[in-house]
């Protein structure tokens, strides 16, 4: 019994991220509304970010900024005293890139709404209005 509890305690963080990832993936696969798909993509990205950050964690270590800075002097820096900076670097850029990709996804959704008047995937009719919004504005439809 105790070994099961120890096993769960050392692994449950991964399972939490996997369940978040599953929620995001389900939204991207099964939801019909494009905005809901974009939200699913955001949840998926968050799960990946949390996963990477938890990889960088070390027991008994502090955040990867040297405590006294330059006053630290020539004292050797122990790697065990600081958590792994690499996942933090990767996720720092990933967060900003995810905001930028969200902007692109939303502008694509705006274009789709302008052309087909809907964001529901199954109501987008590709043959009915092939070039509806692309006529010059001064011409009457």
């Amino acid at each position, binding site marked *: 019994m105790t070994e099961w509890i120890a096993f769960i305690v050392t692994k449950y963080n991964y399972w939490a991220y996997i369940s978040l990832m*599953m929620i995001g993936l*389900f939204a991207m*696969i099964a939801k019909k509304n494009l905005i809901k798909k974009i939200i699913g993509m955001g949840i998926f990205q968050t799960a990946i970010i949390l996963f990477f950050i938890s990889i960088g964690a070390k027991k008994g270590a502090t955040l990867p900024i*040297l405590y006294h800075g330059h006053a630290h002097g020539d004292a050797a820096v122990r*790697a065990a005293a600081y958590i792994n*900076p*690499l996942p933090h670097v990767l996720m*720092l850029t990933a967060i900003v890139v995810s905001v*930028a990709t969200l902007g692109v996804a939303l*502008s694509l959704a705006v274009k789709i709404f302008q052309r087909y008047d809907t964001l529901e995937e199954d109501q987008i009719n590709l043959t009915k209005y092939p070039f509806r919004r692309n006529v010059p504005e001064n011409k009457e439809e």
Partner: protein
Amino acid sequence: MKTAGVIIVFLFGGLLVYGTLDFPDWGDPDAPASRHVSPRYIEKSLEETSVPNMVTAVLADFRGFDTLFETVVIFSAGLSCFFLLRTKRKAPEARFYRHLPTGIVLRIEKGGRLPEGSVEFERIDSIWVPHDLIIRATCRLLIPFIQLFALYVIAHGHHSPGGGFQGGVIFGAAFILYAVTHDLRDGLHRLGEKITIVLCSLGVFIYAGVGALCLFLESNFLDYAALAPVLGVDPVTARSHGILFVEIGVGIAVMAVMFAIYTNLSSVGKQDEGL
């Protein structure tokens, strides 16, 4: 579709949970991720780059190429928003002007406009806009401090959590706050569309330019130690200064891209009326 989705998702999740059985324990100091390259980053970053914040040192120096192309990704995301949404500016159907002393709103038909330099009228959006004096006054007080904090985050990224990406986002958020609380035209008056696009490319140019400068000084691309004779400092401090230049470039690019995405999205590319 729903059933298929559920099956795929649970298959995927089950495979991943099966994979975690071989994963290192949470917080294990001997995990593979903490064993190979990360101790070197931790132990050598102060000695080699004179930057106490290891994240900044790894971001802009050891992994400089990665960050350069992340900046290019953000730049191209801003550009693609522009190309997807921007439409030609044309005269709107009708414009609405509020007479400030009386609060009367005038609707002016297509083609008509107020005389230039008229200060008693304020153009408002075609959807209803309330008198939001408190919000405007609060933000007028708040925005300078937000921008100052953004500059602090960029400049102090060597010694505390921060850097170009975070500071750039805060700076862009200050401009977006201005555009939300006033209106989009006021925001564009402060930071115009052309300036935004120039700043987007300027940020990437600063980053790549610092790298290319190292190339001209007979060293590798993005090896800031080569800047030492130009800056008049020792090579280790030159790497610290090089990181600062690069972070400034990243900050400018991120700030401009955030504002460009906001203006294009909120006005659906018209850059005239928005949130």
